[in-house]
């Protein structure tokens, strides 16, 4: 039963278990890398952002998350590419227009589309490298072992742990209300009316638990000092600490470089 629940919780996460070098890195190193990718996605020209996206996707695939990358990149970039093509390639008043298959297109508009898609692909694939190789509990242990306050750790950890039970509770309320005749497939206004019937029991039940949860936390003294130590903190190394400092140093250089380049 507990194993089944754990399996359900894993399904909610994008995390893919693995033992490769990317998985073995300290979560803070991957988080710093994600920060650098976020800066680079805005600072570097389109060709570089496309290379970042390809490298990140390759890294994710090697780490065993190829299917997650394929699905997420397709679902996000597909509709975005279509919308950018229509708005910037066809409708907006960009210069350098030409005809193709009966469509009046703009060369500059299409280049702008490539720029935005490259940026989003770099941001998305960089984020995916982090979330597919970092289990939330490992991130929390890394934050704890680096001295982050327990309140911050609780605010990140607790929602991750509560999400699956709440989703299951919402499903149970939906089934119960449907058994009472609630129409989820009716007209727009019927569905609007159905909204409170699903929402209010869920929120009321959630808020009813708060006092009990707070008492349990206080009873454990989770904010007591001296702070707890993490017994199995994610491994760190001088090389990784150096890599994080280098990445943190590179970020402002990229911003300054982009300022002059533009």
């Amino acid at each position, binding site marked *: 039963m507990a194993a089944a629940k754990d399996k359900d919780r894993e399904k*909610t*996460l*994008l995390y893919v278990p693995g033992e490769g070098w990317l998985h073995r890195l300290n979560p803070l190193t991957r988080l710093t890398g994600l920060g650098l990718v976020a800066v680079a996605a805005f600072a570097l020209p389109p060709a570089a952002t496309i290379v970042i996206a390809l490298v990140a996707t390759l890294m994710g695939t090697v780490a065993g998350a190829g299917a997650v990358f394929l699905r997420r990149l397709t679902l*996000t970039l597909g*509709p*975005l590419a279509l*919308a*950018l093509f*229509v*708005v*910037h390639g066809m*409708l*907006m008043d960009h210069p350098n227009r030409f005809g193709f298959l009966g469509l009046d297109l703009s060369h500059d508009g299409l280049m*702008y589309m490539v*720029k*935005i898609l490259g*940026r*989003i692909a770099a*941001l*998305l694939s960089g*984020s*995916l490298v*982090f*979330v597919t190789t970092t289990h*939330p509990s490992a991130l929390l242990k890394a934050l704890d072992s680096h001295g982050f306050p327990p*309140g911050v750790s*609780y*605010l*990140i950890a*607790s*929602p*991750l742990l*509560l*999400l699956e039970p*709440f*989703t299951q509770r*919402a499903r149970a309320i*939906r089934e119960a209300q449907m058994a009472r005749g609630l129409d*989820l497939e009716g007209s*727009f206004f019927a*569905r*609007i009316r*159905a*909204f*409170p019937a*699903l*929402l*209010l029991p*869920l*929120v009321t039940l*959630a*808020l009813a*638990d*708060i*006092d009990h*949860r*707070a008492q349990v*936390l*206080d009873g454990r003294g989770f*904010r007591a000092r001296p702070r707890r130590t993490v017994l199995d903190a994610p491994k760190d190394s001088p090389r990784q600490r150096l890599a994080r400092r280098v990445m943190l140093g590179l970020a402002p250089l990229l911003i300054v470089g982009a300022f002059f380049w533009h």
Partner: protein
Amino acid sequence: MKLDTRTLVLMAVAIVINIVVGQIAVWLKLPIYIDAIGTVLVAVLAGPFAGALTGLLTNVIWGLILDPGALWFFPVSVVIGLVAGGLARAGWFRAIPLTVLAGVVIAVLSTIVAIPIIVYVYGGVTGAGTDFLTAYMVGIGNKLIESVGIANLLQNLGDKVLTVLVAWAIIKRLPSRFTSGFPFFRYSQG
């Protein structure tokens, strides 16, 4: 600013409410996000700082586990928490008419914050349903920033007014035994 344990737990539950309620909207095939009910609840019960932090963490956690694209919209959620808390402090959540007006103010301000993110990061489109309206507005000769603003404001008006009304309905049903632990809530009682 140190938050007490009860407020921390409320914020954690509110983050989950934000995420799960978005799922309910998907079940009902409603063209709304309605993903800030928890943020507004916290803002009204515990103040603008707690509301803003709840909004920020909702987007961070949503981004980490479900949709990395949600991360980049965290400033919008922070503004929703700050504005809802500020309006609650001014007594706008005491009765329905002012609560509806609060929804309108939140919609306008969150749209103003969202526009630069949508235009600069996403090129004016996000791959969502509002892109049809944006494309139409551009097609009839409006500038991109105006088109994005109008499309998102229309969508946000419905979304945020519904959000504050649902939050208001929940808050008014809460027993005083529960709300008495949140001193900030006195500004919304009347």
